């Protein structure tokens, strides 16, 4: 046997596994179900829900499998009368603090608590809900935290800290240590929504999540245009029981059409425009020795800079995010072309992101007095709508995106994964400056889920130092490094969420590193099969630059924005 392998027995089954894993990890890998609520593979072990109890032969009592390392020859039992009895009571106690709000919960179709309640025959109303009067906190236009649903696992606190934000805290209030938003005016939420996808019981949700999702359909005499983000096409299938990483682009289009959308466009096309503009900015900054140049399409990252590191504002590219450029184009270029009054157009974005709800209400993004995007729905919200209207992505006749704003390059699709924005910009920057030789398309150094990926890339005979930062917590480290050494990098991409938008705060739950990887791989797969893989070669990009972007002014109006130092936006809780 391999030195790093050990053998353990779980429920009579002999299992070979790596040394150093916990019993719970081994069980999960081997398809053995042990209930666990506070466990999340992205985070440190809490061992607080006391549900993953097991018995180990030779050791008295019960142990939590999440915090006990598997050891050679260990003989583990995951289910016994004692264990069931203990789990049942602990579950009842958990229900006693969790106010059920099942109809409108992001766990509605996938609730771990209710599943467990059924299998342990739990009386969910045995005790009155301790937290009935607990507050609901709104975090800007992006997130809602209903603390009456919280079961105190504190995953959100940890993930927020991991994001380098630390907006969520544990404070003693009315005799209990509770999760509360910070009252410190020097702290603010950046709306990434990682709290929402790491909460096991749906205590966080996007603003409007499920209550307000049909508002866009109530707009009278309006033309409804939907656009969907790169990262949706490889994640929403999960909500319909499809395997992780299933590509459902055309099913998604068909589903949205069924909901009554007039046109369905692809935000990846907007990404192609973003790429062209960002590549220009990067070249300019290099030229003017004004690097580093930071990517600007992630609104959480932008807010992070505006609030926590305003001294870096000059380094943020002014290029707008893909959905915003697209919205602008829909209400100008496309409206003109189709001869439609832009005021009659409603643009709805389907995004993997909660911060996009915040982004669209920024005044400075308006185009001729109109908001480029009127509504943002998360992946989860769209899935909810589909389910409500009995639209099953598993059994639907695929349809193509509409022309001309529906056909992206491969570069626009990989925007959904960490490194994708950088790779797209590099493809374009290299192609535009390279005079001869084989063109490099794939930049594998900037792919993958490492916290910070770096590479040296030759553009226009100059070596430029690029860094791709995965997750805001890592961004904080890179910014601190840049403070000391401003010349450390020339180009920096930051995606606030782990794995990039595939791991966004608006994506289906559950999510973990493996799931994010599958969603990302599928995006690269789409890209590899595309004929056009460079953003600036996308025909619609060419057309717009030739016929519509006739002046700097109009490019600026549609494609660029400005930033400012931000004060705290989330209201400071009173009590």
């Amino acid at each position, binding site marked *: 046997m391999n030195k790093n392998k050990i053998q353990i027995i779980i429920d009579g089954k002999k299992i070979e596994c790596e040394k150093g894993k916990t019993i719970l990890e081994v069980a999960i890998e081997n398809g053995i179900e042990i209930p666990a609520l506070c466990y999340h593979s992205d985070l440190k*072990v809490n061992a607080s829900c006391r549900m993953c*109890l097991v018995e180990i032969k030779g050791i008295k009592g019960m142990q939590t499998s999440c915090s006990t390392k598997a050891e050679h020859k260990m003989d583990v039992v995951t289910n016994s009368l004692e264990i069931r*009895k203990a789990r049942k009571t602990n579950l009842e106690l958990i229900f006693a603090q969790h106010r059920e709000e099942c109809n409108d919960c992001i766990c509605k179709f996938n609730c771990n608590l209710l599943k467990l309640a059924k299998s342990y025959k739990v009386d969910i109303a*045995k*005790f009155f809900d301790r937290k009935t009067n607990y507050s609901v906190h709104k975090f800007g236009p992006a997130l809602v935290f209903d603390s009456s649903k919280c079961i105190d696992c504190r995953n959100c606190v940890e993930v927020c800290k991991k994001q380098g934000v630390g907006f969520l805290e544990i404070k003693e209030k009315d005799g209990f240590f509770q999760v509360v938003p910070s009252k410190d005016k020097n702290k603010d939420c950046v709306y990434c929504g990682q709290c929402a996808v790491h909460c096991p019981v749906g205590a966080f949700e996007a603003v409007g999540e499920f209550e307000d999702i049909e508002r866009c359909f109530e707009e009278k005499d309006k033309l409804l245009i939907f656009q969907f983000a790169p990262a949706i096409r490889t994640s929403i299938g999960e909500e319909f029981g499809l395997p992780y990483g299933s590509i459902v682009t055309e099913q998604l289009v068909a589903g949205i059409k069924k909901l009554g959308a007039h046109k369905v466009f692809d935000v990846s096309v907007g990404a192609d425009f973003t790429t062209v503009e960002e590549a220009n900015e990067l070249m300019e900054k290099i030229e003017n020795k004004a690097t580093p140049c930071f990517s600007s399409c992630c609104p959480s990252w932008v807010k992070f800079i505006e609030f926590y590191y305003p001294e870096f504002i000059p380094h943020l590219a002014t290029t707008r995010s893909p959905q915003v450029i697209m919205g602008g184009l829909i209400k100008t270029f496309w409206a003109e072309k189709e001869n439609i009054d832009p005021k009659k157009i409603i643009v709805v974005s389907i995004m993997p992101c909660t911060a996009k709800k915040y982004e669209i209400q920024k005044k400075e993004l308006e185009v001729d007095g109109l908001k480029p995007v009127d509504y943002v729905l998360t992946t989860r919200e769209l899935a909810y709508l589909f389910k409500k209207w009995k639209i099953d992505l598993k059994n639907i006749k695929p349809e193509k995106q509409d022309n001309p704003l529906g056909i992206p390059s491969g570069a626009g699709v990989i925007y959904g994964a960490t490194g994708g924005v950088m790779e797209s910009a590099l493809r374009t920057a290299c192609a535009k400056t390279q005079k001869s030789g084989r063109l490099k398309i794939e930049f594998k150094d900037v792919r993958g889920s490492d916290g910070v990926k770096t590479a040296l890339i030759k553009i226009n005979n100059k070596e430029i130092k690029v860094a791709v930062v995965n997750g805001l917590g890592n961004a904080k480290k890179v910014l601190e490094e840049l403070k000391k050494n401003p010349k450390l990098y020339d180009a920096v991409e930051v995606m606030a969420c782990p794995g990039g938008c595939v791991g966004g705060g608006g994506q289906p739950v559950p999510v973990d590193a493996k799931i994010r990887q599958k969603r990302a791989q599928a995006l690269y797969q789409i890209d590899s099969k595309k004929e056009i893989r460079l953003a600036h070669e996308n025909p619609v990009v060419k057309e717009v630059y030739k016929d519509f972007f006739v002046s700097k002014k109009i490019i600026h109006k549609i494609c660029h924005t400005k930033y400012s130092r931000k004060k705290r936006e989330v209201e400071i809780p009173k009590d």
Partner: protein
Amino acid sequence: MGRGGAGFPTYLKWEAVNKEKADKKYIVCNGSEGEPNVFKDGFILENYPEKLIQGIEIALETIGNSSAYIYLKKDYYKKFKKLLEKLIGNLPITLFEKTGGYIAGEETAVLESIEGRRPEPRIKPPFPTESGLWGYPTLINNIETFYSVAKIADNEYKNTRFYSIGGDVKNKGVYELSENLTIKEILEKTHNYPLFDFFVQKGGGASGEILLSNELDQMVKGVGAIIIFNKAKTDLFVLMETWADFFMKGNCDKCVPCREGLFRIAEMIKKKEIDEKVMEEIFFVLEKTSFCALGRGAVVPFRSLINKLMS
């Protein structure tokens, strides 16, 4: 024997820390004494502070490359800071004022507190002897243990220990007596054996077990506290309520059985409606599934009182 609540043999701990390989090691003297009616640490600080420092000094000598902390609950810190600092002189011993409530006296929570975090127990293993303060091997003993170490070194140790005696007694206080005495003998020796109908709580004013007057032919193990209650004058619900409130206030609210279970126990007691089946279910998870000793031990007083005095 250690003199903490858990009674872990002292020499095993010393040995464990000693045999670890590390470039530095820590010694922590736990003076967080947090239970109602227990005040022996205060007594030692007041009367034998030199012995305490001497005990820690012996630990510093025994464990190579080590430095020490004395972790003191707030009032002890205020009262004895000056005195201890004088005795410490140049020794590598730092005084640290306890943060947080009762749980902050749990040995791994002490470490969290000294490291500047919210005091909460850590997952064990690793045990502090392997990985304690800032990840270094750490010896944690309480004040009385260091005191005894010094006495042993001076050949003064005569198998005695300290007892805090409190409650409805005439001669409240701390007594140093033979460790082999029964509770009955202790009460008699100190002229505290009541003439009225009474019961006793042994081992701490919250987590201690309730004993009836015919159960006193046993020794006090763990924390040496004996509290006397006058049966006629004690409202059992009020008494249990003080325990429940003490635990709810003093715990860290991390794990489900302790946070929610104690809340439900308190709820039943406050309403004076004890559903024995539900109570037993909660006792079961508290005892068997709590994260740390606080939750596991919280069952003892309630269960013994209900069984012995209420049914």
